[in-house]
């Protein structure tokens, strides 16, 4: 059941190319006659191993940008090169493959399957990647241990705290060993102490595993933790600062 890579997709070849490269990226939504511009020309290069925070007023297009980075959505115009490969116009089947193997996603509201245990949630991507059950089991332990939840292996999400749920979601995002982790307000639904511990986990992943992370947040304190801070307004990058 292992899915082969779609033929048009070339796996990234070297670590020398930027992790993410956006050129003149535009996204508009068609509202009947009207077309609403949400991203109005984004140029952005993110190097492997960067920790980028993305801030901006509500409606400035942060989530839209993150969805495009995550191959959940397609740009209306412009180019998106991921690890040296143009992924601006993949089919849905190809997008799914890229998401599965190269991108980890963490959401504000966790998005865990309510009927599945923590372990089952964590290894869901491995199921789609065609990894065998025994190997999945082993990886589930490893991943839950990594996020400090080894003791919650068999718990369903409703029996986990918000912080624990987000840890399960992070473990799931790491299941297929992606190089790029995208997080859309991962601490937005958590109290500040729990949020801080989640941020600590992300920073740890960034430091120890050289994971490239793009994190959307409204919290300036959280944004401060990043090595590079981008501020968006009205679908444009207004400020881009490296620490």
């Amino acid at each position, binding site marked *: 059941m292992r899915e082969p890579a779609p033929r048009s997709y070339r796996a990234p070849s070297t670590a020398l190319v930027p992790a993410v490269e956006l050129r003149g990226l535009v996204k508009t939504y068609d509202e009947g006659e009207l077309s609403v511009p949400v991203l109005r020309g984004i140029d952005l290069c993110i190097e492997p191993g960067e920790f980028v925070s993305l801030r901006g007023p509500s409606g400035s297009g942060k989530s839209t940008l993150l969805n495009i980075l995550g191959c959940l959505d397609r740009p209306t115009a412009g180019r998106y090169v991921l690890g040296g490969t143009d992924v601006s116009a993949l089919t849905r*089947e190809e997008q*799914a493959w890229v998401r*599965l*193997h190269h991108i980890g996603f963490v959401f504000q509201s966790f998005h865990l399957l309510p*009927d599945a245990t923590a372990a089952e949630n964590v290894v*869901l991507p491995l199921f*789609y990647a065609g990894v065998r059950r025994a190997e999945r089991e082993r990886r589930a332990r490893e991943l839950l241990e990594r996020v400090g939840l080894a003791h919650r292996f068999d718990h369903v999400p409703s029996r986990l705290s918000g912080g624990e749920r987000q840890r399960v979601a992070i473990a799931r995002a790491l299941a297929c060993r992606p190089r790029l982790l995208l997080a859309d307000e991962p601490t937005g639904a958590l109290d500040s102490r729990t949020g801080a511990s989640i941020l600590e986990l992300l920073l740890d992943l960034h430091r120890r595993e050289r994971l490239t992370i793009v994190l959307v947040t409204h919290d300036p304190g959280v944004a401060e933790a990043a090595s590079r801070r981008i501020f968006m307004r009205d679908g444009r990058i207004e400020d881009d600062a490296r620490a």
Partner: protein
Amino acid sequence: MAARVLRRHPGRTLLTVLGLAIGVGAFIAMVSFAEGARRSVVRQFETLGTNLLRVRPGSRARAEGVRPAMPLSDADVRLLRREATTLALVVPVARRTLAVTTEAGRVHRTRVDGTEPDYARIAGLRFAAGGMFDATDLGTSNRVCVLGVTVARALFGERDPLGERVRIGPALPARVVGVVAAQGRTTTGSDLDDFVLVPRTTFALFLGATEGYSSLEVRPRSAALFEAARHELTTLLRRSHGLGPAEPDDFTLWSPEDTIRAAEETSRILGALLAAIAAISLLVGGIGIMNIQLVSVSERTHEIGIRAAIGGSPAQILRQFLAEALLLALVGATAGVLLGVGSSWIVAHAMQWPPSVSWRVVALSAGFGTVVGVLFGYVPARRAARLDPIVALRRE
């Protein structure tokens, strides 16, 4: 995984499965009923097989200007016996319905046949007691009779009727010389054991107010000569009755073959009709699966969004929902097979039909049910696969 999703809504799953199960079960049961009915008719007439032809007076055609039927007479019988080369036996039967009375005064109305000793051979009679009257009885118009078991029981109960005297009609006292073993009932329920046999000559002397014979029972020389015998019988009788070439037969030929063929034809039409009805209920079962899966897809939009967002491909999501539909269909088909085979067996048992569930029908309906379930499961599965993950994720 598919199994767990279905277990989450056991009531709903059960109802879905039931719809398909009833379809599959009905299909098997209907086809089996038709087949059972056919086999029971065939079994009944097969024993007579291709060894019997029956001639009755009267034409099948009811056209204008056809002259009144000529009775079947001794002249016909003599001509057939003299000239026919393909006929082994020709046995005339005269029939009236009369009251039969014992000396103790018990009365039973029944069919009284005046015939010849060979009738026992041609009708394949077996005797529970005594035997058939013989050529002497026939030659000297002896007042003897043979009873079917229904008559024997009605008149004598558990007592042995052999040697007892009965009065047949108003004028014929006769001694019982034989009782025919039970033959049961026809498919339509009429009693095959409700009759009295007397020598044809005795019948003519004491009960004779009939015009001609009510039938001639004819046995061809061999099964191979059956069609030739049918043809010769027709030719000779037409000559005997002086029919011109343009005139239709004024008698009717019947053989067990005719009935078997008619039964087969009837059951084929009936079977096709019942199968069509059952097929419709199968389709309804399939629609049930589609409905439940559509509900399931819209209820689980968020879940589908999650699966898609973390990398499940449209093809994989399609496969997951098809797997659920397949599981539903398989469970439904299996339950349907049990239901269908069970009810066929019960009906066959109750009607004393030969068992007639054919494994081809079982395989066909189970296969058809599964295919229907999966085909109808495809529409919801495709809908799930086509969901936009972003939109799906936003739905709670």
